């Protein structure tokens, strides 16, 4: 297994301190690969991180389109394979309005499944090798982890200046 990099972990109590720090370190090369932790999804963090649009949307779009196409293709192909004339009404393209429902349901179903897959892929989960740097990050604290730097470095000083309540080395 690849060894996970050590570094420093700054713990923040306040959201504004965290976003201040994020703004300052965002584009700096000496903070390359840093990670930010939060107990929930504050929009301030998203804005400070400049993440851009999430790629989950492509998964949703492709899933939903596949669903629409297969939702219409399924009954049509089955109709042409063995036409069922029910109540004097023929199958196939003439019965298309009835297949709108199958098309709609499969659009939602495959769109939803693809969205979930998209979330898992982009969030990089399930992840059996995850490490919990601090259990408080799923409770009430925020954090920034910077790989490959020491506690007495310039980076650590900056994080502390932004209001970190705690700074420690992760080996």
């Amino acid at each position, binding site marked *: 297994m690849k060894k996970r990099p050590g570094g420093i972990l700054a713990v923040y109590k306040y959201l504004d301190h965290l976003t201040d720090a994020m703004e300052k370190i965002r584009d700096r090369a000496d903070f390359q690969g840093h990670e930010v932790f939060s107990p929930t*999804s504050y929009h301030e963090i998203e804005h400070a991180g400049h993440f851009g649009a999430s790629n989950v949307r492509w998964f949703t779009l492709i899933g939903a389109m596949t669903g629409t196409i297969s939702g219409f293709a399924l009954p049509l192909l089955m109709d042409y394979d063995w036409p069922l004339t029910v109540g004097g009404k023929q199958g196939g393209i003439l019965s298309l309005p*009835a297949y709108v429902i199958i098309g709609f349901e499969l659009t939602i179903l495959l769109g*939803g499944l693809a969205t979930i897959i998209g979330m898992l892929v982009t969030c990089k989960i399930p992840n059996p090798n995850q490490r919990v740097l601090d259990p408080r990050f799923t409770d009430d604290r925020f954090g920034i982890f910077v790989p490959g730097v020491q506690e007495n470095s310039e980076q650590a000083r900056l994080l502390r200046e932004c209001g970190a309540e705690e700074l420690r080395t992760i080996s």
Partner: protein
Amino acid sequence: MSDDVKWTKTISDVNDGILVTLEKPHPLFWVAWLIAIACVALGVSAWVYEITVGMGVTGLNSPVYWGTLITNFVFWVGIGHAGTLISAILFLFRAKWRNTVNRSAEAMTVFAVITAALFPLIHAGRVWFAAYWLLPLPNTNNLWVNFRSPLVWDVFAITTYLTISLLFWYMGLVPDLASIRDRVKGFRRLVYGILSFGWRGTARQWHNYEAGYGFLAALATPLVLSVHSVVSWDFAMSIQPGWHTTIFPPYFVAGAILSGCAMVYTLLIPIRKMFRLEPFITPQHLEACIKLTLLTSTIVAYAYGIEFFIAWYSGNEYEWAIFQKRAAGPYAFYFWTMVFCNCVFPLIWWSKRMRNNVAVSMVVAVLINVGMWFERYNIIISSLAEDFIPGSWGHYQSSPVEMALTVGSFGWFFFWFLIFCKFFPIISMSELKLIMPKPLSPKKSKGG
């Protein structure tokens, strides 16, 4: 109602407050759970009896081939409506009160739809043949299913609804399961670690998670409205008087939301007590839920009125005859139960004092559930029993086996729901934190 609930707590109290549920619940919990198990046992025995002896043990006979079992199916699908409505539609509308009730409403949806899905199978009698007439599998004659049949549409609608609701609910749980993982030790830590997929709560994860959650909500919104529309077409696509009307889809959707919201209220009150969640599920949240129920009650009352009016105005004598018989015929008791429970009793909620009276509101919410059950019963039975030709008229009476299956379905629903309450956070912790005051530094909070 104002969304700005005045919290005296901070986000630091959320996990501690809610995860109490993982410790010792109120003794009432165990009593409720044992009652649920007893009901399930009754239902299972009734089903075994039905399979062994045959469908003759139900009250179903010509001309009424849909009875209590299909009523239960429609009822439970309806109950399953409010969950995704509260989760998805109120999420898109940014109604903040949803954040305290969405998790239990979603769980209710999942278990209600699972309960509903049992009934077409129970109703089929020889359940082992179900796969051939429900799913697009070629049978021995190499025929496919008839895609123009509303029953096949319904299979697609219910399956999609169950799948999407389940995924929506579970994705919401993942960050909370990670919170539990970070609090517990030993074997439980391993279990919650696996269940939470190794969620770490990084900003990037939250960013993608939020995007995906939004898309799921956007996909689930038309789904909520469509699923009961499709259920209503099971009836409306036939030519049976009393069923063949275009009002059915919106009428069924409103009814489903009414019963679902009433059930959310019915569940929230005991849960709040059993798991000591009063500080989180506040009277304002309960009142918001009641207001939504009251709104849908008025829509349902309007639908009942319009349905009657059109039956007369259409000039169709069969249609009009059915409606007269519903109100004054052999099934009049069910009709008036439905009207009083769904349209009259909820009127008490126009008074703010009554909305805030938990005992009164609980009684009304339970009565709405009863009324909504009778609504489905009334629609299904009365239209089938007496249609066009007097020579084919009949009468339907629910048999003890069907009643036992109904009781069993309630037991089955509560059995799963209570298990969920014991092992998973009933309130979405990560979403609750979002509606609490933001943890800003003292300087910042003063300044801004």
